[in-house]
């Protein structure tokens, strides 16, 4: 959001506290995750069972896949509110397409949600309208489209194709295929973000868009690709979830975008853009799953109180990031 950046006082030798802070900023989510896993193991004997961990991993992988796309968007200095709607739209399209075989079931959501992302990207890049607004419109449009496809959500298409269903339901020792698919995507995405010119450009335009443009970064194209990727991944996640549920449930994904953003932020990526990494994002996504699970393990908490807890937790995490993470932004 902010392009200029006042040069902080000289830091020729970075002090240890700052280095520790950076470390926590980058791996904080992972550390908290580890801690919670230990706590869970000690406190509840039904926590560290393969079945339970498998469930957490599988259930989190859909959020994680979307969050990977969102990380690209946020690092590039943008935001994508449409992912929740694209997730549910993707699911419906996949279930609808499954009657024509697995290829269509996967292809249709990718094409449509990809197109959504592409158009959003084009609008953002060409008109310089705020991503927040453009993707907010996308959120509405995609959900509207989904509703009109299912006559106002009344129809639920069932997955007809067994091969496709297996992609979502198969598992290797209690961990569902979606998790491994997520890992594969993560690997590819990480290489692209860290080791290619495209990745560098994403960081550059997130850091200082005007400068990036003057340095010859193809700002528009990079943005378009970033939102395209986000749309594709949201659609894919939706499709995989539909395969898992073997039906195109229409009541999914409301407010999902906020969970995704939370995961990315907990993962240590700054919403100001220009900085961040995928590892943290995944940790953040898993973290949300684990917390949910632990809250259930504890039991007893009323549903409203559970929300208070989640809210407080998010607050604590971001405060921690802020206090530990590097130099404080000038206020």
């Amino acid at each position: 959001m902010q392009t200029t950046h006042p040069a902080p006082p000289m830091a020729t030798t970075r002090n240890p506290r700052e280095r520790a802070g950076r470390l926590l900023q980058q791996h904080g989510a992972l550390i908290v995750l580890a801690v919670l896993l230990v706590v869970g193991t000690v406190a509840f004997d039904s926590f560290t069972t393969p079945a339970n961990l498998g469930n957490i991993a599988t259930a989190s992988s859909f959020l994680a896949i979307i969050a990977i796309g969102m990380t690209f968007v946020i690092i590039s200095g943008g935001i994508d509110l449409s992912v929740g709607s694209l997730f549910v739209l993707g699911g419906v399209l996949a279930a609808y397409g499954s009657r024509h075989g697995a290829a269509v079931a996967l292809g249709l959501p990718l094409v449509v949600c990809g197109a959504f992302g592409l158009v959003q990207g084009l609008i953002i890049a060409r008109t310089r309208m705020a991503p927040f607004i453009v993707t907010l419109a996308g959120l509405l449009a995609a959900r509207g489209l989904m509703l009109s496809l299912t006559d106002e959500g009344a129809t639920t298409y069932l997955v007809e194709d067994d091969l496709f269903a297996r992609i979502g339901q198969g598992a290797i020792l209690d961990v569902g295929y979606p998790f491994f698919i997520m890992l594969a995507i993560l690997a590819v995405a990480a290489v692209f973000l860290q080791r290619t010119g495209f990745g560098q450009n994403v960081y550059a335009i997130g850091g200082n868009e005007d400068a990036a443009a003057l340095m010859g970064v193809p700002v528009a194209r990079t943005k378009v690709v970033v939102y395209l990727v986000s749309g594709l991944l949201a659609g894919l996640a939706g499709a995989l979830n539909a395969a898992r549920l073997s039906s195109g449930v229409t009541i999914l994904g409301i407010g999902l975008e906020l969970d995704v953003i939370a995961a990315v932020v907990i993962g240590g990526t700054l919403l100001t853009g220009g900085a961040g990494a995928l590892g943290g994002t995944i940790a953040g996504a898993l973290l949300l799953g684990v917390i949910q699970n632990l809250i259930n393990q504890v039991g007893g908490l009323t549903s409203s109180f559970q929300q208070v807890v989640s809210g407080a937790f998010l607050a604590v995490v971001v405060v921690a990031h802020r206090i530990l993470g590097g130099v404080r932004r000038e206020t």
Partner: protein
Amino acid sequence: MTDTALRQGAPDRTRVITWLQDYGVYAAVAALLLFNAAFTPHFLAVDNFRTQLVQVTPIVIVALGMALVIGTEGIDLSVGSVMALAASVVALYLGYGALPAIAMAVLAGALVGAAGGTLVAVVGVQPIVATLALLVGVRGLANVFLPQLKEFTNPTLVALGSDSVAGVPIVVIVAVVLTAAVAFLVKRTTFGRQLVAVGGNRAASRLSGLPVRRVLMTVYILSGMLAAVAGVLATSRLQASDPTSLGLFMELSAITAVVVGGTPLTGGRIRVLGTVMGALLMQLLQATLIKHNLPQSWTQMAQAVIILAAVYAARERR
């Protein structure tokens, strides 16, 4: 806040653009009114306009606070939950009478705002995350205080929601007064000027000795209080406190109103009347589609289009 009068010599095209930037929303509202006048039965009725105004009130009031926050390059996602909190607090304290209850509700809003303000101004958390945490937590809190919808019969509160003065509903009068107050705050007071300066360039404001923290703090507190007022009014209209569904997704409606009204999300600039117009535009759109009995899917897609069009017209050229 560039006054366009000074840009003499600019070619006509740029003048048209500038005009669109400044008055596009008004034009859109006018267009929608004309459309309805022509094609919607019973549209040109006093009652109808009263209905539309009454329904838009909460959004307008919340959007006013949101505009202030956005002016400082921030954003406040907690407003919807604050409305819910206000609803439950009112129900909790109604035993002491309407006014104390309302006071407590507004206080609660101020406290949430202060929490957000602290996270943003003192700790330095990005507004969107700070208030996201509040959005989740405060909604839960509202439900903890008041687990389920509760009806009330307190005459004062009911009157606040349903009575009119000289044919104008009280809630609308409240909204008008608050709009005027915020407009004055932004245009004429030191605080207002400092607010946009902080949004425009925080480092510079700091080096110019502006009380950046205090400004930010105040802004979030104001946003919280306005959201609380909106919550109270909505509750008084409903004649029941409903912390579960009151104000759901209000943050998005409010932000939409602000941006459609021509206030850029990048801060440093606030358009109060534009914001009101933005809210009205979305309300009229909603009403039009309902009155013509169009399905939900249409409503959402139409909203998408309008948002894009309006913001496109009002966007900053460079």
